[in-house]
């Protein structure tokens, strides 16, 4: 669906993205993740044919975005960062205009607009002026615009930016639903966002693609280990001694003591769950246990690892 090769963009001497290469297959929901200023919006603006690239090439549904730009754009529903809208139009009027602009005619345009409003939960405000809508509703209008002509591909630039937690949850639900019918490329600087909605993550930092994989693989590949915490009624040296012997344990450390109780943090290999073995150990030794918690490594750990290692590389090369 998207094929990007060595895309480079320089703004007046400053390189925003540098030899960016990636693919997005039909039906995928891909998260485009990176901190602010990483080059996400720049990449998406080039893909949607708003900006040119300094070098490199890209294809949308087989159409070159530079030589066959109108045809490429016919396949894209795009929601830019900050969702620009004509505030002096009514919701239905705006979506109808956008539908006709994208090639739907007469009744098809009306139906398309109605369906998009239904999907995004806008039916109740269809005759309101866009100027009078809240940020959350404007975001939905932007989303409805992106999908009004049922394009194959949705490109959404930070769709949950500036929303409150409730609205964020609603928009995420919506995006997940849309994944059934569209290929989606969604940019964000919020990690938890891609972890719950996306099948694959492309991480970009300082204009370089740093990784592209499923969230689970990223976590595993980066070796961000899982952690298990126990609180047990025995002496620290006794419990540590037992844990060192246990298979799957990478390290165990004494965090603190609360009276007779000892809190120990156990680092495990990724995707290993020691809780049952720990429970059995405690029963065997007759040590009372009052806490047993496992925390899986999150994409956040992977992301911090990635962006940090890149910064270190940079620091070294200077």
């Amino acid at each position, binding site marked *: 669906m998207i094929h990007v090769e060595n895309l480079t963009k320089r703004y007046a001497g400053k390189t925003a993205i540098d030899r960016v290469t990636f693919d997005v297959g039909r039906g995928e929901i891909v998260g485009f993740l990176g901190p602010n200023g990483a080059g996400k919006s720049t990449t998406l603006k080039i893909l949607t044919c*708003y900006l040119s690239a300094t070098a490199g090439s890209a294809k949308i549904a087989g159409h070159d975005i530079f030589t066959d730009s109108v045809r490429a754009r016919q396949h894209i529903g795009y929601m830019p960062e900050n969702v620009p809208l004509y505030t002096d139009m009514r919701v239905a009027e705006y979506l109808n205009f956008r539908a006709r*602009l994208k090639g739907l005619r007469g009744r098809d345009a009306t139906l398309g607009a109605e369906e998009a409003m239904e999907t995004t939960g806008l039916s109740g405000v269809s005759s309101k002026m866009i100027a009078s809508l809240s940020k959350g509703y404007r975001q939905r209008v932007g989303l409805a615009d992106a999908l009004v002509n049922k394009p194959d591909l949705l490109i959404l630039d930070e769709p949950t930016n500036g929303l409150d937690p409730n609205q964020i949850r609603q928009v995420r639900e919506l995006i997940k639903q849309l994944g059934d019918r569209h290929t989606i490329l969604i940019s964000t600087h919020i990690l938890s966002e891609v972890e719950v909605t996306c099948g694959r993550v492309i991480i970009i930092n300082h204009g370089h693609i740093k990784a592209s994989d499923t969230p689970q693989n990223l976590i595993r590949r980066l070796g961000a280990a899982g952690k298990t915490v126990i609180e047990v009624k025995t002496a620290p040296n006794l419990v540590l001694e037992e844990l060192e012997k246990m298979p799957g344990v990478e390290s165990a450390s004494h965090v603190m003591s609360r009276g007779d109780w000892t809190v120990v943090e156990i680092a495990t290999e990724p995707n290993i769950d020691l809780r049952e073995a720990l429970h059995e150990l405690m029963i065997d030794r007759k040590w009372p246990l009052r806490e047993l918690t496992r925390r899986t490594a999150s994409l956040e750990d992977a992301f911090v690892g990635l962006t940090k290692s890149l910064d270190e590389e940079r620091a070294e090369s200077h």
Partner: protein
Amino acid sequence: MRVFYVIFSKELRSFFSSPLAYVVIGLFGLLNAWLFVSIVTVMSMSVTPRSLVYNLFDSGWFWMGFCFLFPVLTMRLFAEEQKMGTLETLLTAPVRTIQVVMAKYFATVTVYLAALVPVFLLFLLFRGVTGQAEAFHGGALFGAAVGLILIGMANIALGVLCSAMTSNQIIAAMVCFAVIMLHYFLGFFQYFGGMPGSLMTAGLGYVSNVDHMRSFSEGLIDSRPFIYYLSFTALLLAMTHHVLEFRRWRV
């Protein structure tokens, strides 16, 4: 053509859904009604070799109002879209930039024509009420209409270009107004010291809006002003297209 029509009708609607179009048409109509009455009064008191049409469109007051018309009508077109960011949604839809430029341009031309209608109604009304056929003849009125449309088309193209070059409407309006005023005064330089019949004088005469308007108001329809204004319009619209496409150039 479909895309053109979709944007054209949206632009027309947004002109007429804000007070701007009504205020512009209303003020321009009032100014001309006042001028019209004044000129009729003067003409009824003294003998003048010129027709009513000629006198109205040769008046400095008319040109004042006329020059204000264009920056006000055009300043919004692209500057506002750039400021609001909607240019991005507009140009990432499957449309050609030239379709966008033409649609906005012709929507403005349409509003401009609507502003001219009341002025020409004054003449028809005058003739109907007074039955004074001698005040002007139909050819002069037709010529004046052609002249105003040609000059207006070029000036609107200029305003469209100014609006595309900035995201600030006020700057777009000021630049447009400055260029129109410069153009207006340029036409008078031929009377200052230039040798009559010299190339310089002829050149200045050729670019002079006022000179062309005088011939049109006498009912003389020549091909040269057509070529002048239409090629100017085409050049300015092509420049607008390039300004908007510049982002897509590989540099």
